[in-house]
């Protein structure tokens, strides 16, 4: 036990003596959350739209008002005919046109099914997708209110869960869990793999191996400081999300923290595994960046929706730990669900953790070859 603490203290010295490590550990997460958060929330603000209303009734007026008063959209012009749509986009001022079919309100009342079309400028695909889904959200929201007043009429409701639960329709809701998954993965895996390969490079690993320390003691001693660091980071990100971006934690905080620790452990064991493969710090860094960071961003559903991916990428995304952690985070934080809804994802993370720990302990040699 004394040996273990001696090791942990030494690791903390390494961390605190190196300004760059500290900066990476604490500066970059904060910066990333803020940057992602603000970029995303600025993206959808005062988007200019045009309305082509063939109906001009009470419902279409209400929906229009609701959209314009949401803060995301600004009415640029009213159109009177289809032919005006393309010129409107051409000017570059209008990003979206909303079209109500004739007799919108009466159709909705009678059949419970009315057509509203959203045409958006997809030259910037992401923004296009975002504003479309925001609009859908607002409309859906309105329909829900209507339904609340009069439950006897069965309105058609598109129940796309993401929008449904993200009632405020803030991009931050998507980005904070994603950023958190990415940062924890990077910090935990990158830092441990680098700190272990550094010992190999400096030749100190040789002496540690020759000492009576067992591999598991070396691994635990290396890893525990980073569990603490990564956990502090996770809490920092949650606090930032809560105070700066008003991201709620609807579910159990304890469960959230426990899941976070599980995910950190997974990332650390991945880091150890990388260090058993990589010969030097440079290689460890490359592997961490290429194998962990890019796929986390691209394949975890953090930025690009998984359901839009080709099937093979969907399969690939299934082996990305962040994908499952993001689902867990969204469930607990936004939906407020408990372990019953996320036990599958939790089991997957646990399985991955034990595989990597097993592999690492097996690959971590008591000798040099």
């Amino acid at each position: 036990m004394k040996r273990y603490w001696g090791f942990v203290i030494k690791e903390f010295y390494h961390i605190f003596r190196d300004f760059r490590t500290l900066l990476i550990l604490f500066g970059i997460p904060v910066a990333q959350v803020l940057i992602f958060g603000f970029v995303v929330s600025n993206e959808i603000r005062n988007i200019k739209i045009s309305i082509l209303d063939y109906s001009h009734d009470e419902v279409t007026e209400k929906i229009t008002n609701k959209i314009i008063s949401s803060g995301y959209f600004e009415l640029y012009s009213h159109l009177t005919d289809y032919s005006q749509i393309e010129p409107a986009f051409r000017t570059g001022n209008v990003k979206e046109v909303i079209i109500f079919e004739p007799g919108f309100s009466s159709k909705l009342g009678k059949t419970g099914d009315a057509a509203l079309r959203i045409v958006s400028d997809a030259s910037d695909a992401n923004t296009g997708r975002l504003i479309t889904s925001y609009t859908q959200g607002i409309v859906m929201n309105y329909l829900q209110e209507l339904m609340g007043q009069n439950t006897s009429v069965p309105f058609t409701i598109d129940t796309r869960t993401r929008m449904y639960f993200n009632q405020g329709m803030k991009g931050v809701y998507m980005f904070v869990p994603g950023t958190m998954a990415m940062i924890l993965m990077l910090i935990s895996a990158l830092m441990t793999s680098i700190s272990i390969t550094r010992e190999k490079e400096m030749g100190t690993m040789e002496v540690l191996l020759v000492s009576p320390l067992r591999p598991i003691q070396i691994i635990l001693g290396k890893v525990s400081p980073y569990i603490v660091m990564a956990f502090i980071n996770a809490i920092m990100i949650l606090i930032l999300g809560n105070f700066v971006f008003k991201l709620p934690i609807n579910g159990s905080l304890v469960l959230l923290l426990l899941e976070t620790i599980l995910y950190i452990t997974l990332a650390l064991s991945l880091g150890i595994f990388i260090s058993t493969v990589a010969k030097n710090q440079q290689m460890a860094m490359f592997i961490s960046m290429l194998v962990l960071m890019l796929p986390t961003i691209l394949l975890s559903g953090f930025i690009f929706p998984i359901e839009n991916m080709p099937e093979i990428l969907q399969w690939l995304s299934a082996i990305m730990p962040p994908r499952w952690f993001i689902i867990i985070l969204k469930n607990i934080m936004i939906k407020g669900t408990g372990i019953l809804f996320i036990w599958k994802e939790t089991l997957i993370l646990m399985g991955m953790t034990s595989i990597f720990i097993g592999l690492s302990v097996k690959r971590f040699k008591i000798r040099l070859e």
Partner: protein
Amino acid sequence: MSEIQVKNLHKSYGDIEALKDISFEVDKSEIFGVIGPDGAGKTSLFRILTSLLLPDSGSVMLAGLDVVKDYDKIRKIIGYMPGRFSLYQDLSVEENLNFYATVFGSSIEENYDLIRDIYVQIEPFKKRLAGKLSGGMKQKLALSCALIHRPEVLVLDEPTTGVDAVSRVEFWDLLHKIKLEGITIIVSTPYMDEAARCDRVALIQKGEIMSISKPEAIHKGFTRILYELSPGHGAYRLLKNIRNEEWCANAWLFGQSVHLTLDTNKEETEFLEYAKREKLSSKKITAGIEDTFMELMRKA
């Protein structure tokens, strides 16, 4: 019984044979030197001794323990200084020492008397980061770290490489004090002149031990006739000239002089005539370690 017993040790990396049938024994509290150039197999040998590498065949016993089977027990009784000083550059002198002490389940106080002589020299800098120490200081700190758990066997892989001459002398003085504590020391070096500081010396080249002897007996490996020629200036010109002579078996530069090897008495007479004719000052000498090493290399 010997403290270290190495028997018929073989080690290859792919096609390269790093160690070819190495055998030797080291007595308790002896300083055993392994001298040879880079790539001779010193580091491979030492890594096998410290249980860091597995031999392909052959056996090594340290204090009666087998380095393969009893590696965990071995690791408690050896102190090891790898080729590069294995210190944490971003930890202070004191922190390095404390860390290695706890790793080996010991403390500075427990074995202070053993490292006192070394430690008093580095103590004034104990708050300084190891990375900021001079080469000689780093070397002493690394030695303290290897000694902190009072090992029975001390394995030092090229401890004097990259360290200045004064520090090297001081380092060898320290080893002789440590030896008096009953600690067995096996040390490697590429510098032939350090042979004199060992109790016994093994000369190693291309994975083979060419000779093992006391330093004062090394010259016995040299069986030919050896002359030292001192031309004053122009040793290189002289070297080129005499290499063309028939009687010259071997000639090498030794600083500002030339060492000439002769095989037969006839060659010797011919050379002496030449020296007289050319007014060359020369004298017959006993071989030094470098002469012997080169001779053994030729035979190998």
